[in-house]
């Protein structure tokens, strides 16, 4: 038995609209998840501690300013400090992709980047992908094509695919396989992940 022709509903938000959405638009969704921004207003610590650094970054359109131990990874920062737990720790050492987030348009393994390295950057996590209540076409496609089983790798898969499709909007299947080969799906839902990314590439306006 084969899948019927994929039936991806009309994307209710265009990619461009999503990217232009900026802080105001995504803020509405995310601030509900992130009641705290008071800390973002805190002054820089008066007694400098060489082992700590103030990092500033916009995550899902919201500016943050946190002082962290220098060795804090970006994954620890977004999961621990920002309480955005969609990015997962599958290996903590650059070998699985569960921690993938997008930094300045590029997918990176957040487990192996320091928060201080990323200071000043624009970061997108899975929590920032939907705009208002509309899912991103990739999220829609992963639902329609069941591009997951346990879901533990899924945030990373979707973000890796987003960074790729933003640069290569009309890829071949083999392009997608190569681009996504840094993201392990242990459940091996690969056939449906591939179908999901291809469907999203067709649904996303170039």
């Amino acid at each position, binding site marked *: *038995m084969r*899948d*019927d022709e994929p039936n991806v509903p009309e994307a209710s938000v265009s990619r461009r609209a999503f990217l232009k959405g900026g802080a105001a638009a995504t803020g509405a969704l995310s601030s509900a998840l992130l009641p705290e921004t008071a800390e973002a207003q805190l002054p820089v610590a008066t007694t400098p501690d060489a082992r700590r650094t103030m990092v500033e970054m916009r995550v899902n359109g919201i500016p943050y300013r946190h002082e962290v*131990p220098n060795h804090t990874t970006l994954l620890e920062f977004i*999961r621990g400090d920002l*309480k*955005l*737990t*969609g*990015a*997962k*720790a*599958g*290996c*903590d*050492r650059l*070998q*699985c992709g*569960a921690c993938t987030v997008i930094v300045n348009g590029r997918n990176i393994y957040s487990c192996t980047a320091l928060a201080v390295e990323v200071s000043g950057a624009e970061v997108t*996590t*899975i*929590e920032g*992908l*939907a705009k208002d209540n509309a*899912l991103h076409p990739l*999220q829609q496609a*992963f*639902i*329609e094509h*069941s591009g*997951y*089983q*346990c*879901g*533990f*790798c*899924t*945030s990373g898969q*979707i973000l890796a695919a987003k960074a790729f499709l933003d640069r290569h909007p009309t890829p071949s*299947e083999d392009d*997608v*396989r*190569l681009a*996504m*080969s*840094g*993201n*392990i*799906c*242990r*459940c*091996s*839902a*690969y*056939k*449906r*992940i*591939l179908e999901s990314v291809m469907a999203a590439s067709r649904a996303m306006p170039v």
Partner: protein
Amino acid sequence: MAQQVTGQAGQPGGALNVVGRRGPNIDAIDRVTGQAKYTADIELPGMLTARILRSPHAHARVVRIDTSKAEALGGVLSVITYRDAPKVMIWGSRQYVLNDRVRFAGEAVAAVAAVDADTAARALKLISVEYEPLPFVLDPEAALAAGAPQLFEDGNLEGQPRVVNRGDIEQGLKESDHVIARTYRCPTMWSGSLEPHAVVAQWENDRVTLWCSTQSPFRVHANMVAQLGLPDSHIRIIASYVGGGFGTKSAPHVDETIAALLARKARRPVSLRYSREEEILDSNTRFEVKMYIRMGVKKDMTLHALDIRAFINQGAYHTRLGGLGNHATHLYNVPHLRTVQNRVHTNVPNTGPTRGVGDPQECFGLDSAIDEIAVEMGWDPMAFRLKNIKRNGDPIPRAAGGAEDGRLVTQALDRCIEAGASRIEWTRRNQAPNTAQAGPIRRGMGMACTERTGGGGLSGAQVKVFLDGSVIVFYSSTDIGTGSRTTLSMIAAEVLGIPLKSFRTVAGDTEAAPWDGGSQGNRTLQGTGRAVEAAARDALRQILAGAAPLLKATPEELELVGGSIRVKTETARTMTLQQVMERRGRSVVGDGSIAQGQQGTDVERTSAAHFVELDVDTETGKVTVIKYVSVHDVGRPINVTIVENQIEGGTIQGLALTRSEEMRFDPRNGRTLNANFLDLMPPTMMDFDPRAIEAVIIPNEGLAGPFGGKGLGENPCHPGMAAVANAIYNATGIRLREVPFTRGAILRALNDQRPAASRTA
């Protein structure tokens, strides 16, 4: 293991509205938006971070352990050693949570809980342990030799060898027209999930709640009763979203108890998450099996004698389900059969049942030997299998023994084989290995078969219908990626006549839901699914009873269809479910509890045939899968998308075993050399082309499961190793009897095959 109940199953008279369809999972939004909360995502006020100190020795006695410096470190709130741990073995295992004797490199010795991960890591370094190293042994046969280091007082052999006898094996071999004797080996392999084990423990007075990444909450629950000495009602296990399991999370472990003990001592909630390395070293992984097989056939193409002597390397500890599957006894007819399984303790890390207990390992040996003997006799291996597989009505053991006291029913393996052969176009297969072909690439085809029981035992579920007509299914087995939230909701939706979009689930909760055996061994659908079906029927009965006076009819005259209740013979007399529920004024709770076991002589199994076509590059040793057809009997599929996804994923996991994932141990100290993904190489999308894999479902209807469904999850992972080995032979003429089939192994075998003069040294 016992086979399944037969008889009474829930099959509705009319057509099915929900069951048998495709469709996305009901919890899909949570999974694609990052909202699904896995254990490590849970954060409680004042929560501490725990770390475990692990033994560097494969076998040692802990002579002295000093934790005073760690305890004195600021920010450390509790430290525990074997002195704090109960002298109670973990459920189903011989392991103590913490002990003064360690039996594998990586075994837990002490644990700390501190305000943050850095402090916990520093505290671990301050614990000083004096070990008395003991001699160790890694190989299961060496462990049985005289003078071998002994792991346990009663020796290294677990209990007695498991022996099955049917007919007279020596006589059968003597009577055979052709006999082969071969040895096959599957090493210890990492078969775990992407989510490492994680636990969050929180005490309230003398009650504890544990969020765990487990497949089987009530097994963990039972273990906590034993470990902590608490009443059953004082423990709550919650495993809501679980990031995969594949068997490595099917049994209680050290982590739950360690977190609970640390939290109790610290009087604060504790979070414990394994690193990837810990997860690989300490997660009950796939056990090594070495099989000595003798097989005899008659000229009329019948399998006449089969002798399997197996050494199962359980590692230091093993959860209670060990050993091979039931292929030798349940897959093929053979009058003279003997299997002897020696389950042996060694100092490799602990093992357990992983996606198919010992099925993939047994399948590799048995279905390779089947292929070898067929080739030697000049028979088509597929025709040989079709001649000898058990078919409906054939005698088959009702239990795991050899006596064929039952009769096989609802089997569809013959149809699986025929469908697979046609999909892969088996007739194109090389009659003999492709050795004369020009160029370095050799193409070949292979196949293998598998079968398993479908779980069962005790299951429970509840179905609660709210005043607004929406439904929650409560169950305490889990959705580890198998889609059980969706499948179980579909079963209830079918029974109730309430649209699927009205359903939510509470999964994996031992306080909210009734007792259930958990999610392992193909049992969630067949066991929990039947309980959900019963609960839904109970709820339906209550709803119709409540509606009867409102519609001035008897309950028997009513039906619930599409979210409305109506008089069957007069469908205009109708009320919506919501109207009825609101008039009723209180929710409905349907209860379902099921005990399944072998009854009567009908024996139901679930089976599959896999076919692969592949290329071997004889210059590089690279194997490329061109096409892989996985044909399964799943009874009636409840959700076709989920079933196909399971088959495809399991197939790739089976293929992964052919290529990588062997755990390698340092012979000098017994430590695992490759406890990371870079060296174990779980497959990516580049390693096997997912487009090459085709899942095929054979139309069938089972007896034991709900709506004719059969358990499925384990089977897709079984046949990969044997099918690929057989195809590599068909392509090249080399026979690989040890997994994984690395490029090096293939090149060495090709080299050995060449005429001596042209071999490389």
